[in-house]
């Protein structure tokens, strides 16, 4: 039987998660922001799969499927908003969306 240290799997997920976070925080292009969000969600899914492997469960995979669904729906709505935003401002720069403050 092959074994992999559980922490390696989780650390991989953690690294991907942090990369996603960096993407969300740095990019001004909203499409990139959305892509980075996908990376974060995917990292969470990976963490679930790793955990499922640790226990030899199928449940973690079920959760992964749910995350997949969630990611798909989020992308659909997000892209809808991007289209709307581009139509109004002719840009994908999220900095234009800072009219409300205080």
């Amino acid at each position: 039987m092959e074994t992999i240290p559980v922490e390696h799997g989780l650390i991989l997920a953690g690294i991907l998660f942090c990369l996603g976070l960096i993407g969300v925080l740095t990019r001004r292009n909203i499409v990139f922001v959305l892509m980075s969000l996908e990376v974060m969600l995917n990292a969470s899914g990976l963490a679930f799969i790793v955990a499922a492997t640790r226990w030899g469960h199928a449940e973690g995979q079920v959760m992964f499927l749910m995350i997949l669904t969630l990611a798909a729906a989020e992308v659909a709505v997000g892209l809808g908003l991007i289209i709307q935003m581009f139509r109004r401002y002719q840009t994908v720069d999220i900095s234009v969306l800072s009219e409300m403050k205080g």
Partner: protein
Amino acid sequence: MLELIWLLPTFPLLGFLALVLTGGTLPKQIAGPIGAGSIGLSFAVAALIAMEFIGSGEDYFVYEAWTWMSVGSFSPGFTFYLDGLSTVMMLVITGVGFLIHLYATGYMADDPSFARFFSYMNLFVAAMLMLVLGDNLVLLYLGWEGVGLCSYLLIGFWYTNPANGYAARKAFVVTRIGDTSMAIGLFLLFAQLGTLNIQDLMHAAEGEWEVGSGYAVAAALLLLGGAVGKSAQLPLQTWLPDAMAGPTPISALIHAATMVTAGVYLIARTHILFELAPSVQLLVAWIGLATLLISGFTAMTQSDIKRVLAYSTVSQIGYMFLGLGVGAWSASVFHLMTHAFFKALLFLASGTVILSLHHEQNIFKMGALRKVLPVSFASFLIGSLALTAFPFTSGYFSKDEILLGALAVEGVGTWLWLGGLIGAFFTGIYTFRLFFIVFFGESNVKHHVDKEVGGWHMNGPLIILMILALVGGFIHVPVEAVFSHGEAHDEHHVSGLIHGIMIAVPLIGIGISYLFFMSKTFSVEKLMASGMAQSLHKFWLGGWGFDTLYNTLFVNPFLFLARINRKDLIDRFYALIVALSQAANGMIVRTQTGSLRWYALTLVAGLVFIVTLGALL
């Protein structure tokens, strides 16, 4: 029938609401019947309930109208507790209250703020009933503060005169000192015994605290603080004479018959606590004695008809405290009732005098009024006799019981009895001094008085109160069950001599008063000639210098502080809080930049912060 007890405070409350919600615009023809009628209805219900309750022979009756909320061990509710004590109180409040309301419809007829007056009066009665009928500390406190508020509003009823406003503030501030003490006492009881129900509290206190234990003494002392404030006893007695600034029916209802006796009620209600703290109980007696003597002296020197009566009220409540202090619980409650009759009578009669003389209150500007004001004369005669404890009037029986109770105390009892007797002697002097000066002698009236102000709604209450003041002593106060386990039951056999002395002393007082003010056998002027007598007179007139003392000790330093504080340090402090909040607001608002990337950054920063913190802990 007993379940209808919730109607008692409800009627006055509805009256209050009706008068207030119409904004005081109701005409007198409607506002009067609402104001007095609501109390009348309450009295009718109270009478029926009292009859059924006494007939049932039960010791007490509890009716839970509803529980406000029940959170953990804290469950205040509108629960009414009826026993002998609260029966007496509710009958006095609604009965005497109704008569005074009725009287007031005549007395206040020309006042532009007629409806406002009755709205306050109704609210007062509602609060007072809540106070005496509530079975838990929350209701008790609610009623306690409610009557205080109404008292404040009514003393300052004629608020256009700044002096009235001052009197109202003084009453409010002074009683507030007592209220604070009481509130702390209630918290102490709740915190230590974990229930709000008064009866449960008393039983718990009995079970958990030793006689003379620290908690019992502290709680009893704190409650006593509240009682002396509300009942105008030493050292917080100074507000009551000034409270006479309010309309006379107010003086009769609030500052003679009901509210000022709330302190007596409070101590009687929590008598078990005081029995657990015998030292405090004895203190109650000494406070009562000191108060009755001091105010007795003062009453002899006053020239304002209402102030004389006010000091006599303070003095009579002193008797009640004396009774409480010596464990003559039912005697005190008895005196509370009879006092309500004759003092309300005296106040209302003085109201008629004042009104007939076009708001003249100085007794030296009256005189020879017995022909002109026959009803007032009769009222004053009967009221004064009862007040001086003339044999077989109501006051005689109750005062007698208190003094006998004092005599029964081991050790200091004789002294207390003697002090009370001296007080009774002075009562005779000052009461009949007032009576003789006002109704006999030569007329000093400036304005011509054509006739006595009256009408059935003013004279009717006077006549009923006259009867009560005369025969009220034969009413049996059904409070045995309330005090059953605490009262000194062993009837001391008292010799005829003692009885003779107790009957004779007030009569001697009356006699001396006659010699001074009626027959002029002795001259006041001659007595006053010596310098010492004058300064004594001045001292007594000023109420033993308590006002001056308090002014020097508290008010002036406070004013001084306020003056050097013209720049207002305290207010600066609050301004600082405001400025700090605004500055904090200014800073924190800057975090709301509107930039999405900044928002995301704070989100992650928060995450990093708590994760790091969690790892460090």
